[in-house]
């Protein structure tokens, strides 16, 4: 079934019911269309439900109201087509880097040689050659996140979901990882949904940005980022980048203030 959209989110709402009876409306009437192979950012203040939306797209949380569809059909549960990368890396700590990357490959039914070959390929892609036998506890945050990215990309998902993947890293590592991610995405085109609260990060990485309101989350604006996709990190010094970032920050600012005050 050919689809002109990579991910189609229609009228999705989501509520969390707390034990004491207080219900929290995380998302309200989300309509979102992510194009195939598009790098799409979900930008918004803390608690706006952007992660929840990501988990719904991934199929990790069941959809309550509305529908989410990809080219493969409706989303009913987790699947290989939708890979995910978490902020806390979610590496299997008892496995080495290589074993982590091999995990998904083992489920693919490839023969041993092909698996090892593919694992090596992706470990090199994220510049971790030499660290294959290290355990996550021996790696820095940046290296752990690279492992997570390699692990997810190795099974070749059509859609890559990223939940504030660089949020746990220090500012310098974060910049390096952003540039590397951009480079990887330019080489291996995929549909990416990238959750972040960092405006510069969103403008640098994404082609389109959905700006979400504070809780209950709605999509307030969708912005096209018309920057040179082929350019490297130097694009961040350009005037267009600065202007666009300011513009978007203005839109986000209201929501951020509302979120800090706890108002809905």
């Amino acid at each position, binding site marked *: 079934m050919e689809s002109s959209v990579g991910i189609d989110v229609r009228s999705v709402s989501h*509520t*969390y*019911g707390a*034990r*004491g*009876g207080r*219900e929290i409306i995380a998302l309200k009437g989300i309509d979102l269309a992510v194009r195939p192979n598009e790098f799409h950012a979900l930008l918004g203040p803390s608690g706006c439900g952007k992660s929840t939306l990501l988990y719904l797209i991934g199929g990790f949380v069941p959809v309550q109201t509305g529908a989410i569809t990809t080219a493969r059909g409706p989303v009913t549960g987790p699947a290989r087509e939708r890979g995910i990368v978490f902020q806390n890396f979610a590496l299997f700590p008892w496995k080495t880097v290589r074993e982590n990357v091999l995990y998904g490959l083992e489920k693919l039914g490839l023969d041993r040689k092909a698996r090892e070959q593919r694992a090596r390929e992706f470990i090199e892609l994220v510049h971790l050659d030499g660290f294959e036998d290290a355990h996550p506890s021996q790696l820095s945050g940046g290296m752990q996140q690279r492992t997570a990215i390699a692990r997810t990309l190795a099974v070749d998902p059509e859609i890559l979901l990223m939940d504030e993947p660089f949020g746990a890293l220090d500012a310098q590592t974060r910049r390096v990882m952003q540039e590397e991610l951009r480079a990887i995405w330019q080489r291996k085109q995929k549909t990416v949904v990238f959750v972040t609260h960092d405006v510069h990060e969103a403008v640098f990485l994404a082609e389109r940005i959905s700006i979400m309101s504070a809780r209950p989350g709605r999509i307030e604006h969708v912005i096209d980022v018309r920057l040179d996709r082929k350019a490297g990190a130097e694009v961040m010094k350009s005037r267009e980048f600065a202007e666009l970032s300011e513009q978007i920050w203005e839109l986000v600012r209201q929501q951020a203030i509302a979120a800090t005050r706890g108002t809905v």
Partner: protein
Amino acid sequence: MSATPRAYVIGDFLIPMLVIGTSLAAWEATAQMRLINPFLLPALSDVVVRIGKDVGSGVVIVDLALTLYRALSGFAIAAVIGIPLGILMARAAPFRWFFDPLISAGFPMPKIAFLPIFVLWFGLFDTSKIIMVAFSSVFPVVSAAYAGTQGVNKWPLWSARSLGATERELLWEVILPMALPQILTGLQIALPVALITTVVTEMLMSGKGIGGSMINAGRFADSVGVFAGIVEIAMVGIVVIRAVEMIRRRLLAWHAEARVEA
């Protein structure tokens, strides 16, 4: 996963009641229908009747009083020796050096194995039992008192010192109150240990007390009596644990713990 208030009530209250109720009903039904030899599994009704009879005749009260007397005596000794020892260990290096290996080596040992030694030294009556209980219970008390005193935050200590507090005032008015939660935890662990050790010791040495009565019932193949004893011990255990929790809440009302729980 969202859980509505209704699901909460069902999950946390109704279902446990249902499960336990069904288990008890199944127990009674199995016994009534003679599915299992009544010797192996006496009817719930018989057990309840026996408990009622024993309570009425005062037998249970006597046994209970005896067991509690032994348990609490041993527990008290463990507390009186253990708490100061733990505090000393935290404050004075020589004590720590000497006792730390003894305590940590003793922890995983089956201390009940030492009972014959205590019987040899202290005879067949209450004394040996109480000392056995004290010996078993002292370890968690020392350990907790040590950890609690050691972990006392430096800042209140330094503040108090700079305000002119003497060492003794420091101990009683700063260190002990701050170590109190952990000391109480140690006592909370030691009390069930004391109870179990008492019951087991009574079983091993026969005589009166709940343990003694239970093992006698066992020897006379009085399975109703054995099961009655188990129910009694279980209930005593629950009551004791609840009582201790209440006392802890009272004593630590001023502590951060109480605020967190509220």
